[in-house]
């Protein structure tokens, strides 16, 4: 079952008098419960593709079909609703609200979807427990380590039970060991039946995925299945 189908998508920016083709012509599909990595050097159009996949931006040309809905021509508010319900974002820099505690950060998407307070708190709590932060619920981001912050961000992405998780360099700001722990978490999420799109420029991170889509100069260079996907193991807890 396909969640995402994009056909001949292009994104053209006007920079001064020059037209920049960030994406020239990209077509791809992503199915349910897939684990896909999008790779490419800087300038390859990777970020632009991610923004379009994440409904933060609309393509200049082409069709983007999300769960059978054409989102390429939606307005701001409709896109906001799709982002809220269908997409969970995980960013390189975590992007938590600095002055709010973990619980409030995780609750936020549910506030925007209009869920009553009690139910919301329960769901957020549950999401925090799932990422192993039951002891850090009332801590603010600056009282948490990088790995813990990213876990809060992942809990926030999962709390709405979205169709896809969109992770942009989720280990980019973490040391190798913490990064590995996060990749373990992603693997668990994937094995629980979620769809993950991972944007990265690091080969060994991309190899956690089932499939790697390589971009270059706004075009899909390769779309390859990973033969021996790297399955990270949970370390001994310490």
């Amino acid at each position, binding site marked *: 079952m396909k969640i995402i189908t994009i056909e001949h998508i292009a994104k053209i920016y006007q920079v001064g008098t020059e037209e920049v083709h960030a994406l020239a012509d990209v077509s791809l599909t992503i199915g349910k419960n897939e684990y896909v990595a999008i790779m490419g050097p800087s300038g390859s159009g990777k970020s632009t593709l991610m923004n379009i996949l994440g409904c933060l931006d609309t393509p200049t040309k082409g069709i983007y079909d999300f769960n059978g809905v054409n989102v390429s021509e939606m307005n701001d508010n409709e896109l906001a609703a799709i*982002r809220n319900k269908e997409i969970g974002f995980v960013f390189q820099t975590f992007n938590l609200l600095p002055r709010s505690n973990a619980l409030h950060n995780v609750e936020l998407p549910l506030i925007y979807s209009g869920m009553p307070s009690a139910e919301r708190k329960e769901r957020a709590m549950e999401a925090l427990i799932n990422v192993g932060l039951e002891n850090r619920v009332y801590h603010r981001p600056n009282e948490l380590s990088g790995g813990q912050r990213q876990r809060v961000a992942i809990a926030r992405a999962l709390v709405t039970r979205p169709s896809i998780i969109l992770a942009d360099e989720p280990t980019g700001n973490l040391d190798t060991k913490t990064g590995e722990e996060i990749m373990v978490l992603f693997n668990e999420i994937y094995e629980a039946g979620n769809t993950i799109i991972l944007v990265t420029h690091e080969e060994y991170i991309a190899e956690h995925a089932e499939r790697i889509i390589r971009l270059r100069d706004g075009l899909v260079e390769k779309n390859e299945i990973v033969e021996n996907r790297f399955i990270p193991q949970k370390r001994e807890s310490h």
Partner: protein
Amino acid sequence: MKNFLYELKESLLISLYAIRANKVRSMLTTLGIIIGVTSVVLMSTAIKGIDNAFQKGVSSLGSDNLYIDKWAWFNNDIPWWEMRNRKNLDMDDFKKYEDLAKLPAAVAPTIWTNKKIKFKERNVEGIMISGTTYNYINTTNLSFESGRFFNDFESRGARNVAVIGFTVAKQLFPLGNGLGQEIKIGDVKFKVVGVLDEQGSWVMGNFNPDNQVFIPIDCVFKYFQGERMRSITINVRAPNSTSVEAVKEEAIGIMRRVRGLSYAEDNDFSINQQEGLLTTINQTIGVIQIAGLFITGLALFVGAIGIMNIMFVSVKERTREIGVRKAIGAKNRTILTQFIMEAAIICLIGGMIGLGIAVTLSMIVNQYLPTAVQADAVILAVVISLLTGILSGFAPAYTASKLDPVEALRYE
């Protein structure tokens, strides 16, 4: 509707959260509004206070009273030289009027002069001496601390008796009651037969009975000035306020006859009323009000600009936060509401503090000048501060709501 309320409630919570998170900045922002609201409330209560004082002062003239005088007190339609050339009103005029007038409840002539008053070694300069008849008391609402007004007998016989106002009594007899004492007005001895209660307000100045001494009118003519030297004023009291107009009409008719005016001639006297004074006062207060509100409005405006400024900075500073909120599903409208709400709450808090300061200050000022804080000041403060918040928060909030999430997330 339910959805809207939910959103309103949630943005209220988010705004409160944001305000608490930025305490110092929020406080500094509030300062402008505190000053603005304080000055608006203070100004409006001061104006109310002055107005009340005037109304009270004016009502001491009595709403049922008419004053027949050579001069029009409040009316500027008649040129002053014309009034100056009018014949003086004298006691003959008064007596004829008193005989002919059927409608008034009481009539009394008055004449004023300025004299030094002495009690033993104590001197009070420049006291307004009112010469009048016993009937004067019936044209006023004066009440007595002790004693009485001089009677018909003393009045007609031009006995040396005096009734002294509250303030005069305090000055002459700081330690005790002056009743029965002998005082000297100019060089003439008078016996104090009555001391008045505190009556009026500072508004009436020397015409406030508190600052006056009353003696029989013939004493004035006998000791202080010739009978025809100055014009007298005739105090007329109507039986009730509905008959004031009739009394006035009658007075005009009688006075024209007394003064021997032909049909072609204009009145050579004026009938003065509290109403005329009220009009003048209301005009003056109106001007003060407009000027005051304009100045304080300016203070508020500066405060509003401050809020707008800070909100713009705040939007800039929180661009990334706005990006995150949008990425996880905040609609444009949600962001707009959040920021407007933030500005409104900051202003409302400022307004409440400002109101508190204004009330405290006006209580202090009240010791020296009359002020009046009323319930409508509270409403005024709330409405003004909320309105300021919403108006000054709108532009920054709109900017925030229109931010492109991609750009905002990338913002450093």
